């Protein structure tokens, strides 16, 4: 079992790397904000980043297995509800509830 000093150091190392990655690019990229290329990228970046993170969340879905029906059904419910009602809270809650019910009760394998 890791000792306390090591476990705290691991958190601090992670924090330093993460904060560096979040803060330093502003110094490097802020002068570029006026450039047309950077504006082109920055208006398209949010949608692309969210789609990539979504695929990342689904990366381990076993597509050849019936267990995949739980996340895929929940995904369909989330998308359908969001296109219909445009209520983020409702879509997330319903999608999560459907997934938890299916994963806990139906596709338990």
């Amino acid at each position: 079992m890791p000792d306390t000093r090591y476990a705290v150091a691991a958190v601090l190392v992670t924090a330093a790397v993460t904060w560096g990655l979040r803060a330093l690019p502003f110094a490097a990229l802020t002068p570029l904000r006026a450039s047309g290329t950077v504006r082109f990228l920055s208006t398209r970046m949010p949608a692309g980043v969210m789609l990539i993170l979504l695929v990342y969340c689904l990366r381990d879905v076993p597509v050849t297995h019936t267990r995949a029906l739980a996340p895929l059904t929940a995904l369909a419910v989330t998308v359908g509800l969001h296109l219909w009602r445009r209520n983020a809270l409702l879509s997330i809650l319903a999608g999560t509830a459907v997934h938890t019910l299916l994963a806990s009760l139906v596709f338990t394998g």
Partner: protein
Amino acid sequence: MEIPQAVTGAPPRPVPVPPPPRTSQARAAFKDSAGAGLAFIPLGLAYGALVTQSGLDWWWAGLSALVAFGGSFEFLLIGLVTVCTPLASIAVAAFMVNVRHVFYALSFPLHRVTGRLGKTYSTFALCDEAFALTSGERARSWPGPRILWLQFSLHLYWAASSVAGALLGSLIPAGVTGLDFALTAMFTVLALDAVRDLRGDLPTPVIALLSAVVARLLFPEEMLPVAFALFTAALLARHFVTGRRAVRA
């Protein structure tokens, strides 16, 4: 009090709006964060429960949630710490998983956050969800305090639910699984809203999905950084190709 344009006959001119009081900024920010908070709380509970199940102390869940605020890597960190991975390897892993944040500097509205302390905190707490909520069309009018309050509330939900999960983890019935889908559902909602903001720019989501799938198939271990790099490169290529065509026409 607004005077109708037709009455004054003056050309449209930006009217300086007095900043709303601080409390209403905070209240608006807490409302903005509700959807993400709903995803954070079950995930934070799951994170805390996993920390104590892995044999780490309950306070470590709170410390890591507060100090190393970045959900997806924290789940990995539990596994790394329990097998005493060298700190240098943890640093490399944190870099690989979190390098995507480099791209956030392009559109996160840090220029609206004022003061050195505010900017320091804002970059520190720049998680995926904070970026997603503040860089979209809807957030274009949000002033600095509203952005900071939003980040603070996300940070608070995450830290508090992690501690709660660590303390209450043993109470969750063993058969209940799948709450972690909240993260997927949240990114689904954020992606749908962001794609709608593009107003019919279909190539962008197609490029993003292709980048993600290619990265998943070819570099499953480094999927996120590879996907972001492919996506950025493809967008740049598209920008230069269409730009040149426009100049020629």
